[in-house]
C-alpha cells in the first residue's frame, strides 16, 4: 500500500496524456497536461499519482476559475482575464474605504462598526444536489459555513441565505430523462437538507429565493450563502513557518473523492456516489464552538476550511508562501483501507486546518477535549517553498508551491455574441385583468414560499428584526431580511438577492443588470443605503468552451461592471460554476441550463429601528409609485402566462436608479414611509396585491396616474417588470416631506389604502380593470406551493 505509484508522462504522446487525464478523472486538458509534462522533464522524473491529483485539484475550474481568468477572443476583441477587467476592476475603481478584504480570502469582508467586520460568501453546490439532493444541499450549506469560519482568523456565522433553481414541480414524470431525479423530489430533498443542516447549526436562514424553469431539469442549482461577524483585529491571517499543521473536526473517509474535479465537468449518468460528501452538522457546530474559543485566546496564526480538494487544497493554499510538509499516516480515518491519495484529496466534511505555534498546542488540545472534538497534528509549515507529502516515511509529493499555484496555463476561449430571435407578441389588451392577475400570482416563481420558509429557523440567535414573512398575519413576502448580530447594539445587517434567468434567455447583459437592480431595490425597500452596500456575483453557466455560452458570460460580466460602477456597489466576493450541462436522453442532446447570475447584496444598517416592511399599514394612506414604467414585458411572468417570451427585456437606467434609491433611503430614514415594496416579477399588479393582502387592507388605484414612457395599455402598466420601481405607502401628514425628499424623481400618487378588503384598479380610461377580494388574491398566491 505504501508503494509509490508513478505515472509515466515523460514519454507520453498527446493522446496518451489525454488518456491519463481521462482515466484518472483529472479533468485536465492537453495544454495543462503538456505543462505538467514539461515540469517533470525538468525534474527528470515521473510524477506520482498523488502529485497529479494535487495538481488537478488545484487547477480545477472549481478552485481556479480558469475560464473567467483566461484569454478570451470575443468576436475578434481580446479580453485578457474577464474577471480582472470587469468585476474586480469596478471594485478597485470604486475603492470604498469600508471594503476590508475583497476577492482574497475565503469570503469578502466589509466594515460593520468600530469593533467588528462582517463577512459574506455565497457558494454553489449544484452537481452533488442533482445526484443526492438531501446530502448535496446539506453539505452545500456546511461548506459555505466553513468558508466563513475559515475567513481571516474565523468569523461567527450569523445568517444563511439559500437560492434554488429547479424545473417545475409538476413536470411530466415520463419526460424526465434517464439518470435524472424528478424536480419535485430534488426540491423536497434540497429543502430538507438545508433545513436539517442550517437549523442544527443554529444559524438563521432568513433570506432566499427559488426560480422555476424547466431548463434546470437535469442541472438544478443550489446556492448557499453565509454571513459572519468577525472582530476587526481577527480579519487577517498569516501562516508562520515552523507552525504545526493541525486538523480538527470530522475524520477522513472515502466520501467526496474528486468533488472539485467532478463539479468542474458536465454531469453524466451513472456517477459514483463517492463524489458526494456526507455531512454531520453537529460535528460542524462543535468545530465552530472550538474555533471561536481558540480564536479569542489567540491560539493560531491562520485557519482555512477543508473544502473542495480536501487537505490537498487546504494545506496547499495555506503553505503557498512558505511550504508545508505533511505526514498522511497521522490523519485520523473513519475506517481503514484508504489509499494515501484518497486521504489527501478526500472531501470528507467538517474539517478545518489551523497553523498553530508549538507553544499553543496544549491549550488548543484542552479546548478540543472540553468540546469533544478530535484534533490531529498532520505536519508542519516549512520555509522551503515546497509541498511535501509523505506516507510512513515515503515521499509521495515533492513539488514547488510556485508551480502548483502559478503553473496553470492560461485558457484561450472563443466567445461570440448571439442575437436573440424572439419577437414581441401581438394580442389584445383585456377589459378585465382580474383573472390575469390571479394567474400571475399563481406562477410558481411568484407564489408564496411559506411552506419552505417556515421549515427554516429564521429567529435563532435572537437578532431577527425584519423577517422573511411580514404583515398582519405574518405571511407577506418581505423584500429583504434584517438581523442584529450583537444584541446590545442597534446596528444590523440587511441581506437581499436578485436573480432572473428568464431575462437571460433574451439578453444576458440585461439579466445581469436587472439582477443587480433587484438586489439593490430589495436593500433599499427595507431601509438600507446602497452607498453602504456590497454585492456578490455567482455565475452558473453551461460549457464555457461553447462560444455563445462564453459570449453570454462576457456580456453578463460587462453589465456587472457598468451597473455596479454607477450604483457604486463594489463586488466583494464571487464564484462561478460552469459546465452545468447534461446529456438528455429524452432529447438526445447535450442541454445547458439557462445562464443564471445570482447577485447577493449585503448592507450594514446603522440603526435597524428605521426599517420598514412591505405590508400596508392604515386606510387613508397614500400609495405612490416611484420610477417610470416602460414597455418592458420581455421575459415577464405576464407574457409567460400567455405562452410568450417577448423581446423588450427590462433594462436598467442606473443614473436614475441610483438617484431613486438614494433619495428613497433618505425618505425612509426620515420616517416618511409607512411601507415600501419593490416592483419585480409580476410588476405593479403583483406588488400592489402583496402589499394589500399582507396588510389586510384594500386599495383603490388609478393607472392613468402612473408615470409611463411610451405605454398605452393597462396590462403593460400593470405587468411590466421595468426596473428601479417601488410602491410606497405614505401617510397624508408626511406627503410634503416625502415629495420634498424625492424631488426631481418620476413619481405619482396612484391611489389610496382603503378599509374594505378589495383591490380595485381603474384603467387609463377610468374603467375598472381589476376588482378582487384581497383574500382571494392571497389564496391564488399561496395555493401552488402550500404542500
Amino acid at each position, binding site marked *: 500500500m505504501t508503494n509509490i505509484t508513478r505515472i509515466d508522462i515523460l514519454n507520453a504522446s498527446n493522446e496518451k496524456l489525454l488518456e491519463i487525464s481521462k482515466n484518472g478523472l483529472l479533468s485536465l486538458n492537453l495544454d495543462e497536461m503538456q505543462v505538467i509534462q514539461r515540469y517533470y522533464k525538468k525534474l527528470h522524473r515521473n510524477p506520482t499519482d498523488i502529485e497529479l491529483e494535487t495538481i488537478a485539484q488545484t487547477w480545477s475550474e472549481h478552485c481556479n476559475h480558469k475560464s473567467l481568468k483566461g484569454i478570451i477572443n470575443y468576436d475578434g476583441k481580446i479580453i485578457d482575464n474577464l474577471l480582472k477587467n470587469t468585476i474586480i476592476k469596478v471594485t478597485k475603481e470604486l475603492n470604498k474605504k469600508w471594503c476590508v478584504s475583497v476577492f482574497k480570502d475565503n469570503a469578502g469582508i466589509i466594515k460593520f462598526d468600530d469593533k467588528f467586520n462582517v463577512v459574506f460568501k455565497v457558494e454553489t453546490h449544484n452537481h452533488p444536489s442533482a445526484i443526492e439532493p438531501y446530502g448535496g444541499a446539506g453539505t452545500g450549506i456546511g461548506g459555505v459555513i466553513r468558508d466563513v469560519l475559515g475567513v481571516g482568523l474565523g468569523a461567527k456565522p450569523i445568517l444563511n441565505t439559500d437560492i434554488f433553481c429547479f424545473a417545475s414541480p409538476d413536470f411530466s414524470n415520463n419526460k424526465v430523462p434517464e439518470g435524472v431525479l424528478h424536480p419535485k423530489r430534488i426540491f423536497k430533498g434540497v429543502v430538507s437538507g438545508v433545513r436539517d443542516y442550517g437549523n442544527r447549526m443554529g444559524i438563521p436562514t432568513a433570506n432566499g429565493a427559488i426560480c422555476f424553469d424547466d431548463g434546470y431539469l437535469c442541472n438544478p442549482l443550489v446556492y448557499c450563502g453565509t454571513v459572519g461577524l468577525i472582530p476587526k483585529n481577527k480579519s487577517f491571517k498569516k501562516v508562520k513557518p515552523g507552525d504545526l499543521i493541525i486538523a480538527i473536526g470530522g475524520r477522513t473517509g472515502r466520501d467526496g473523492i474528486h468533488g472539485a474535479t467532478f463539479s468542474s465537468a458536465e454531469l453524466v449518468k451513472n456517477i459514483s456516489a463517492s463524489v458526494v460528501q456526507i455531512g454531520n452538522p*453537529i460535528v460542524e457546530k462543535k468545530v465552530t*464552538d472550538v474555533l471561536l474559543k481558540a480564536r479569542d485566546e489567540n491560539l493560531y496564526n491562520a485557519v482555512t476550511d477543508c473544502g473542495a480538494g480536501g487537505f490537498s487544497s487546504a494545506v496547499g493554499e495555506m503553505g503557498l508562501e512558505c511550504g508545508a510538509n505533511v505526514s498522511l499516516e497521522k490523519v485520523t480515518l473513519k475506517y481503514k483501507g484508504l489509499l494515501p491519495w484518497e486521504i489527501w484529496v478526500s472531501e470528507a466534511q467538517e474539517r478545518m486546518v489551523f497553523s498553530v505555534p508549538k507553544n499553543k498546542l496544549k491549550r488548543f488540545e484542552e479546548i478540543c477535549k472540553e*468540546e469533544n472534538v478530535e484534533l490531529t497534528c498532520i505536519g508542519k509549515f516549512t520555509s522551503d517553498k515546497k509541498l511535501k507529502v509523505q506516507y510512513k516515511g515515503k515521499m509521495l509529493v515533492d513539488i514547488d508551491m510556485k508551480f502548483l499555484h502559478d503553473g496553470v496555463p492560461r485558457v484561450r476561449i472563443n466567445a461570440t455574441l448571439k442575437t436573440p430571435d424572439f419577437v414581441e407578441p401581438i394580442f389584445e389588451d383585456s377589459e378585465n385583468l382580474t383573472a390575469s392577475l390571479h394567474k400571475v400570482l399563481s406562477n410558481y416563481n411568484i407564489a408564496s414560499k411559506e411552506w419552505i*420558509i417556515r421549515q427554516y429557523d429564521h429567529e*435563532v440567535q435572537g437578532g431577527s428584526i425584519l423577517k422573511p414573512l411580514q404583515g398582519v398575519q405574518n405571511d407577506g413576502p418581505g423584500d429583504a431580511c434584517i438581523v442584529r448580530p450583537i444584541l446590545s447594539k442597534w446596528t444590523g445587517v440587511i441581506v437581499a438577492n436578485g436573480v432572473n434567468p428568464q431575462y437571460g434567455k433574451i439578453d444576458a447583459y440585461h439579466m445581469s443588470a436587472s439582477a443587480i437592480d433587484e438586489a439593490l431595490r430589495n436593500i433599499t425597500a427595507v431601509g438600507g443605503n446602497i452607498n453602504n452596500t456590497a454585492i456578490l456575483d455567482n455565475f452558473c453557466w453551461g460549457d464555457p468552451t461553447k462560444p455563445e455560452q462564453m459570449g453570454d458570460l462576457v456580456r453578463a460580466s460587462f453589465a456587472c461592471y457598468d451597473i455596479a460602477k454607477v450604483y457604486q456597489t463594489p463586488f466583494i466576493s464571487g464564484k462561478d460554476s460552469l459546465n452545468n450541462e447534461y446529456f438528455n436522453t429524452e432529447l438526445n442532446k447535450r442541454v445547458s441550463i439557462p445562464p443564471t447570475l445570482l447577485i447577493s447584496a449585503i448592507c450594514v444598517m446603522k440603526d435597524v429601528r428605521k426599517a420598514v416592511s412591505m405590508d400596508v399599514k392604515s386606510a387613508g394612506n397614500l400609495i405612490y409609485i416611484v420610477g417610470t414604467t416602460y414597455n418592458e414585458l420581455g421575459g415577464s411572468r405576464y407574457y409567460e402566462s400567455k405562452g410568450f417570451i417577448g423581446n423588450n427585456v427590462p433594462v436598467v437606467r442606473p443614473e436614475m436608479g441610483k438617484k431613486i434609491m438614494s433619495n428613497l433611503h433618505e425618505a425612509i430614514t426620515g420616517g416618511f414611509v409607512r411601507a415600501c415594496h419593490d416592483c419585480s416579477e409580476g410588476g405593479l399588479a403583483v406588488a400592489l396585491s402583496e402589499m394589500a393582502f399582507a396588510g389586510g387592507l384594500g386599495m383603490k388605484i388609478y393607472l392613468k396616474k402612473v408615470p409611463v414612457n411610451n405605454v398605452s395599455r393597462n396590462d403593460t402598466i400593470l405587468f411590466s417588470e421595468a426596473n428601479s420601481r417601488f410602491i410606497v405607502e405614505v401617510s397624508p401628514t408626511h406627503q410634503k416631506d416625502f415629495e420634498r425628499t424625492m424631488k426631481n424623481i418620476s413619481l405619482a400618487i396612484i391611489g389610496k389604502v382603503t378599509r374594505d378588503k378589495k383591490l380595485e384598479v381603474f384603467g387609463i380610461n377610468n374603467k375598472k380593470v381589476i376588482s378582487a377580494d384581497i383574500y382571494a388574491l392571497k389564496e391564488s398566491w399561496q395555493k401552488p406551493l402550500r404542500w
Partner: protein
Amino acid sequence: MKKVKVIVLRTAGTNCDYETEYAFQLANADVELVHINQLISRQKKLVDYKILAIPGGFSYGDDIASGKILANEVRYRLLDSLEKFVGAGKLVIGICNGFQVLVNMRLLPGFDDKIDKTQYSTLSFNDSGKFEARWIYLKNTNKSKCPFVHYKTKVGMIYLPIAHGEGKFITKNNKILEKIKNNDQIVFKYVMPNGKEGSYPWNPNGSNLAIAGICNARGNVLGMMPHPERFLTKYNHPHWTRGNLPEEGDGFAIFRNAVSYASDAL
C-alpha cells in the same frame, strides 16, 4: 448587591446559548456558559449557581429522540447535584430543546420534587410532520406556583416564536395529564388571539390540552417549547413596523421574574 449567578448549560449542538445568556444579562444576572463536560469534570459546580438554564438547540443532533442523550448524560452523571439543586428550590428553565431534555430526564413533570421514577411525558413529533418556525399566542394558565410567570410581573397573554419539529406534549396516560392539570402545573397553553384554545396553526404541534409549557409540582422547574429569549425588545416582534407596541418584549418578564425571585428568595 451581588448579582444572581446563572448557569447556561451547553453541549454539542446547543445553539440558543448566546441569546439566553443575553436575556439573563439584561435581567442583571451574572451569567456563565458552561459545557456539560466542565460539570462532569467538576471544574464547575451546580451548587455555585441559583438558576440553571438549558437552552434550545439540537443537543447531540437530537439523535435517538430530541434531548434524549443530554437528558441521560445529566441523569447518569450529575443526578446528585441536580437533585440537590432542585431540592433547594433553585430555579431551572428549559427552553425548546431544554424542555425536551427536562421531560426526558424526568425532572418534569416532577411530581415529587425529585427525578420521577418513570418517564410520564414526552415531546413528540408535530402533527404537521415537520419542523416549523412561527409566532404563536400563549396564555399563562398557572394559578400561583411558578415564580417565572408570577413573581413581580404576572405574565398574561403573550406572543412568542416557536421553532421545533418535536413539540407535541403527550403523557403516558390521561391520568397523568389530569394530574398535571389539577396540580396547577400547566404554565403555558397555545391559544388564539381571543384567548381560547384553537386548532392548527394556533396550536402549532397538536399538544394535548394545547400545552406549551409546564412546571414541576413545586413550581421551580419550568419547561416550555416557545422561545422567550427571542422576544426581548419590541423590534423582535413581527409587527413592530406597524407601531403601537410596548418597548419591552413579551419574553423578558420570564427572565426578570426568575432573577428577582432568585435574588430575593434564594
